[in-house]
């Protein structure tokens, strides 16, 4: 993934973060989306270790040893932010008060299944908070390179890895496209600048439903 393709993907995901939302950004790529949200957009950033109102990353040397996000990054608390325990933090997630989460993925299926926590025999460091975020956020976006490092599709007809949650994904943002999971299958919403439809179909392991007319670009 080129740096410019990555920036476009991050900026595109950021456009779906709307004023008034409470949002949780997963570790890795999703965390980087925040830099693309307009600074005056009223968004409450939740991190599952116990804060609503993340105010950005701390400048080096100014870190507060007691104030991190779930990825271990040192953060600021915005005016109007709050701290709470881990039970309240997940009550907020499971109770329907999280409007949006953006997560990473190993595999996504056309029916919205998500696999992002275990590769049996290779990677199994624990599910952390992913399962509850994926299953219970009101809206779930996945942010990922369209293919893995070997060029294989990460979007499949069915996941091969153990699932994080069934049918949970609403929208997929990649370096190549934005796709929506709908009851009748995977819909192409937008195509990245410079990507051809044939190229996208080749890199996608599930049938893509494409509306008539010009495909919007991002």
């Amino acid at each position, binding site marked *: 993934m080129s740096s410019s393709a990555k920036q476009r993907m991050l900026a595109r995901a950021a456009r779906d973060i709307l004023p008034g939302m409470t949002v949780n950004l997963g570790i890795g790529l999703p965390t980087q989306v925040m830099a693309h949200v307009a600074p005056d957009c009223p968004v409450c950033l939740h991190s599952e270790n116990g804060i609503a109102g993340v105010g950005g990353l701390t400048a080096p040397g100014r870190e507060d040893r007691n104030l991190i996000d779930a990825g271990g990054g040192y953060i600021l608390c915005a*005016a109007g932010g709050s701290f709470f325990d881990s039970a309240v933090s997940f*009550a907020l997630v499971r109770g329907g008060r*999280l409007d949006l989460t953006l997560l990473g993925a190993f595999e996504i299926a056309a029916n919205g299944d998500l696999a992002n926590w275990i590769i049996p025999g290779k990677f199994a460091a624990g599910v952390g908070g992913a399962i509850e975020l994926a299953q219970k956020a009101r809206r779930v976006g996945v942010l990922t390179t369209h293919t893995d490092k070997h060029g294989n599709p990460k979007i499949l007809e069915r996941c091969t890895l153990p699932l994080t949650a069934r049918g949970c994904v609403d929208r997929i943002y990649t370096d190549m496209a934005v796709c929506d999971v709908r009851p009748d299958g995977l819909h192409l919403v937008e195509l990245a600048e410079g990507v051809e439809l044939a190229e996208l179909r080749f890199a996608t392991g599930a049938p893509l439903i494409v509306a008539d007319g010009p495909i919007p670009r991002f």
Partner: protein
Amino acid sequence: MPFPDKTTDLAAAISKIGDGARVMIGGFGVPGTPFTLIEELVRQGPRNLTIIKNDANEPGMGVDWLLQAGLVKRLITSHVGLNGNAVRMMNAGEIEVEFVAQGILAERIRTAGAGLRGFVSDIGVGTLLAEGKKRIEIDGETLLFEPALEADFALVHAATADTFGNLAYVATARNFNPLMAMAAECTIAEAEDLVPLGGLAPDAIHTPAPFVDHLVALPPELMEVYGVVKR
């Protein structure tokens, strides 16, 4: 990072509550009871309400206004002993009353707020209060399933709020308020003191703003019913 301003007009906030709504009301006795929100609910008058509150206040106060106005179909509560009017209406069949043990009531509300379906406990096993409850066998022991208790609206009373809806309660006025604020589809808070963003220490917030939908600032002069009860 700015946050939404959730302050709104009293009438507008309460107008969302329609006939047949399930409404949680904070408070244990007078402390923490959102009298101003209740008074406006009586003024607007939706009917067939299910009210979920620890107690029925006392005659001429709070929940009793709703009872007297004939707006309540069902009351889910732990105790109505201080309101003879509620006892009379219950005995006359004018309202349905479901009694729940106080801590089980608190926990069922919290369970809804936590997005869980219910919990399993041994409280009440072998007594009248176990009747009609689903039994769950765990390790050979028969226990009771207590379903999550959720509502359409929660009306809560806070001492201090910021404009985003972070809430802080004082003393024993906390009681059911933070639990109910988590458990309803729509949470409406009244606050004695409204402060700007940053006016509440983030470590001292009892209800984080994402749980609160609408916020009504109370006038500087509170209604007399909020005061010390003269008995």
